């Protein structure tokens, strides 16, 4: 397959670098300033140019969107509300009967019904495994069981928040201290607001809820429909009291066809959901097969890129 990649951050770059190993060609990469095209594109040269000049190339975005590719990989940063520019990039590709693989959560969290409608009208397909749980095949697992036979999905879907909570509990260190440490280690971004206030986990929960609701003929939800609480106000004393009783606190996202809730929850200290560090876990409750637990890396360039490339591998040949 020929891939065009919009977004040249950690995920977009990893997709470009790993595509060859999966048997695909990259024919274009765009960052926020410009684009580089080629058939195939010299990926290494494009990223070398980006590190020297700040951009992968000086071609226009529209030329990338109009290029001869089979799959558009949308890996621009997630935006809330109108989910732009990710939404329009994806629709532009679908309108040209091209496949779209999203790493960007915005279009499926904020405008699910619209993007699904665009995909229905297209000969291209839409996939978005990488938007939930990074390398963990959460969406695929739900699809395999059949979303109508999945009753609920819950889990730890934000590695930054989980790192902070597990460090606070293990070391008795304050929230501010651990967050600063996480930033130093590169586990937390310079602005970790969406990670610690529950927004990021809620977006992932909404995406899963939308898959469950679509299978039941229900309208899609958006972030505004989710009940969201974060971990910012949690004192270390709360974690130590819970620890005295064999419990700990995790930021848990719960998605069902009825809605989405995200917030700190008491869980057994040695229980399945109490993953440590930046690990994520997804629990899938099925109608006939009980519960499945899937844990792994929920973020990171190569990890998320592997989910993107798995999606590419599942697309129908063009």
């Amino acid at each position, binding site marked *: 397959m020929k891939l065009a990649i919009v977004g040249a951050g950690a995920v977009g770059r990893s997709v470009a670098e790993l595509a060859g190993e999966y048997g695909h060609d990259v024919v274009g990469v765009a960052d926020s300033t410009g684009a580089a095209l080629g058939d195939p594109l010299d990926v290494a040269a494009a990223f070398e140019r980006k590190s020297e000049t700040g951009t992968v190339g000086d071609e226009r975005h529209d030329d990338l969107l109009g290029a001869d590719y089979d799959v558009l990989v949308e890996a621009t940063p997630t935006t809330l509300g109108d989910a732009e520019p990710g939404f329009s990039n994806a629709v532009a590709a679908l309108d040209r009967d091209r496949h779209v693989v999203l790493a960007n959560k915005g279009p499926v969290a904020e405008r699910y019904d619209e993007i699904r409608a665009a995909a229905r009208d297209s000969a291209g397909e839409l996939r978005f495994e990488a938007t939930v749980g990074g390398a963990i095949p959460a969406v695929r697992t739900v699809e395999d069981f059949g979303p109508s036979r999945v009753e609920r999905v*819950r889990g730890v879907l934000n590695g930054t928040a989980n790192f902070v909570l597990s460090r606070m509990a293990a070391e008795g260190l304050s929230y501010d201290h651990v967050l600063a440490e996480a930033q130093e280690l590169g586990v937390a971004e310079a602005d970790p607001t969406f990670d610690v206030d529950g927004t990021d986990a809620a977006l992932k929960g909404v995406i899963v809820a939308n898959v469950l609701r679509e299978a039941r003929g229900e309208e899609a939800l958006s972030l505004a429909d989710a009940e969201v*609480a974060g971990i910012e*106000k*949690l*004192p*270390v*004393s*709360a974690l*130590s*009291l*819970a620890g*005295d*009783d064999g*419990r700990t*606190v995790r930021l*848990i996202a719960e998605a069902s066809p009825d809605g989405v809730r995200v*917030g*700190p*929850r*008491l*869980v*057994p200290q040695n*229980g399945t*959901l109490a993953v440590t560090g930046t690990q994520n876990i997804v629990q899938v409750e099925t109608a006939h097969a009980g519960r499945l637990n899937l844990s792994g890396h929920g973020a990171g360039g190569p990890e998320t890129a592997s989910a993107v490339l798995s999606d590419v591998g599942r697309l129908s040949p063009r």
Partner: protein
Amino acid sequence: MSRQDGVTTHTLRLELTDEPGELRAALEPIAENGGNLLSVFHERGNLTPGGRIPVEVAIDCPAGRFDDVIEGLREEGVTVVAADEEYYGEAFRVLLTGHLVDTDLSATLREIESASTVSVEELSLSAPDGVEAVSSAYLRLGARSGERGAALARVREIADAKGLTVVEPLEAGS
């Protein structure tokens, strides 16, 4: 749970025959023995295998009078199935954090218990930075079987009104 004024809260599970006036007759001995009725719970349509009606009541009464209440009920011919036992069928834990002391923790606990479907069974408080700073309380609560969700909603409501944060347990089976 015992309080400073010496009044204690108790729960009783009764079984009544399906006859008019039976409930009123059953409740009279409570008042006669100094008890104050807090709530009566009857799940409509729910009958015992013997065709009787199970009713659960919560009462306040002066410390030491509870046995008199039970005796009074039995004298009246009321079947007392359980007193202060197995009633709070579901124990669960919640964390409360925030300005617990400034917002009057005792009053908060009383409010939680006044919902009458909830009892505070155990409390640990941690205020390592002093009572005026943010502190945490770990509560073990009891709720009537099947009413955990409602009990949690009530705790959330009370905490919201006081600007406290609630860390809830996950649903059973987690």
